[in-house]
């Protein structure tokens, strides 16, 4: 019964994304984004501010293993007054950039489970195309509310991770799909100096969750690693290190799928996207260096609060409680 509901829901979203109303962004009467409102806010100081925001969120993101997009989009919206469609458009290109840059390093160390990544990418890319299609027709208010809820979810997940970080992990066996597709793998853990083998349990639920992660990524212009990693780790029993590396491997391809649609729809405003991409690239590079010096726990506590505040503000702004 549960799966029937999920299935119906997924079919409905898919239908709406493919055949629903398009390009409300351009000719909607409710919140029309004109040439003036696009270039109106983009002055050189704004571009520098966008660069700074991207630098900060890129650094934070790579220190915490979270994509920077989840903080960057709300900051662009609240601090610079950038329309959320444009902020998401800049963010999705930045997500592709950071993912490609870090994947070029990760690929060499064989932690990434390529087969699992490819299998789940089937779900995330279809989801991403769906999400980007939905986003093109969504209003500013809807997107803000959905974004806010996602931020609150991310905050809760991070809080939960902090409390249960000492829990031991038990390997699972392959289920029938994983057996047939040979999804289980092994990698060499340098920190524990042993080879860790694992199977992939419940591959189909993880497949469905990956689809949802793809929709969220396409809808909001973020990487969606915060959904994929727990799905692989908790639902399918993939070790954390492999889950993170595999999720990162998938994010670039997922984001590329929706980025193409964003670009075609004109959501990637040059004056915002350019500084954001450059800032995120430099920021994530700096973050990787800084991560060795900063205490992770303190940073995570701060981040839980930041996500909570941003999430509440996004929801409040989305439902019209505060003006922004």
């Amino acid at each position, binding site marked *: 019964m549960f799966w029937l509901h999920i299935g119906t829901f997924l079919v409905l979203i898919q239908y709406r994304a493919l055949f629903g109303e398009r390009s409300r962004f351009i000719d909607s009467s409710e919140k029309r984004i004109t040439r003036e409102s696009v270039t109106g806010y983009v002055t050189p100081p704004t571009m520098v501010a966008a660069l700074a925001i991207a630098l900060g969120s890129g650094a934070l993101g790579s220190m915490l293993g979270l994509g920077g997009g989840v903080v960057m989009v709300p900051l662009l919206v609240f601090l610079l007054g950038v329309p959320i469609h444009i902020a998401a458009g800049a963010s999705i290109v930045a997500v592709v*950039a950071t993912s490609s840059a870090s994947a070029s390093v990760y690929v060499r160390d064989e932690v990434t489970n390529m087969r699992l990544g490819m299998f789940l990418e089937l779900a995330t890319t279809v989801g991403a195309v769906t999400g980007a299609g939905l986003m093109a027709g969504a209003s500013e208010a809807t997107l803000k509310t959905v974004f806010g809820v996602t931020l609150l979810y991310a905050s809760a997940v991070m809080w939960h991770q902090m409390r249960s970080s000492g829990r031991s992990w038990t390997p699972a066996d392959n289920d029938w799909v994983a057996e047939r597709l040979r999804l289980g793998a092994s990698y060499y853990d340098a920190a524990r100096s042993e080879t860790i083998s694992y199977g992939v349990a419940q591959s189909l639920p993880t497949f469905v969750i990956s689809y949802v992660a793809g929709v969220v990524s396409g809808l909001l212009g973020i990487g969606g690693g915060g959904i994929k990693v727990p799905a692989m780790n908790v639902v399918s029993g993939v070790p954390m290190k492999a889950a993170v590396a595999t999720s990162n491997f998938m994010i670039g*391809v997922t984001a590329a799928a929706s980025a193409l649609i964003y670009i075609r729809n004109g959501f990637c405003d040059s004056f915002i996207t350019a500084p954001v991409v450059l800032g995120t690239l430099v920021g994530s590079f700096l973050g990787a260096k800084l991560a060795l010096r900063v205490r992770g726990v303190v940073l995570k506590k701060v981040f839980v609060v930041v996500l909570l505040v941003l999430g509440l503000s996004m929801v409040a702004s989305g439902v019209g409680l505060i003006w922004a």
Partner: protein
Amino acid sequence: MRRLEVLVSGVLRLGVALSGLLILVGLGLMAWSGDVSCPYGVLSLEWVLWGDPFLGPSHVLFLGFLVLVATPMVRVAASVVAYVMDGDWVYAAITGLVFAVLVAGMFMGLG
């Protein structure tokens, strides 16, 4: 497979560096020429590929974004080739489908 991985890792790095460079050059051209005109709204595939004028400031900037978005696509295409060469048809089909979705995405969202 291993040699391909190293190659792909190089392609990824090259793609990011090239797009970063294109974006910087685009911004520089805009500042230098004072031509900040930029298309807005739904973009035609022709504009994205050929620009108007070709390699005008905003077009160079957009090519930077495009190169960036194309790098993961190149990566998927390389995996398809690798699986076919290994004779792993199941995974060749899976990666092929992923690539098809990416290409479909490019033609979707026509506005």
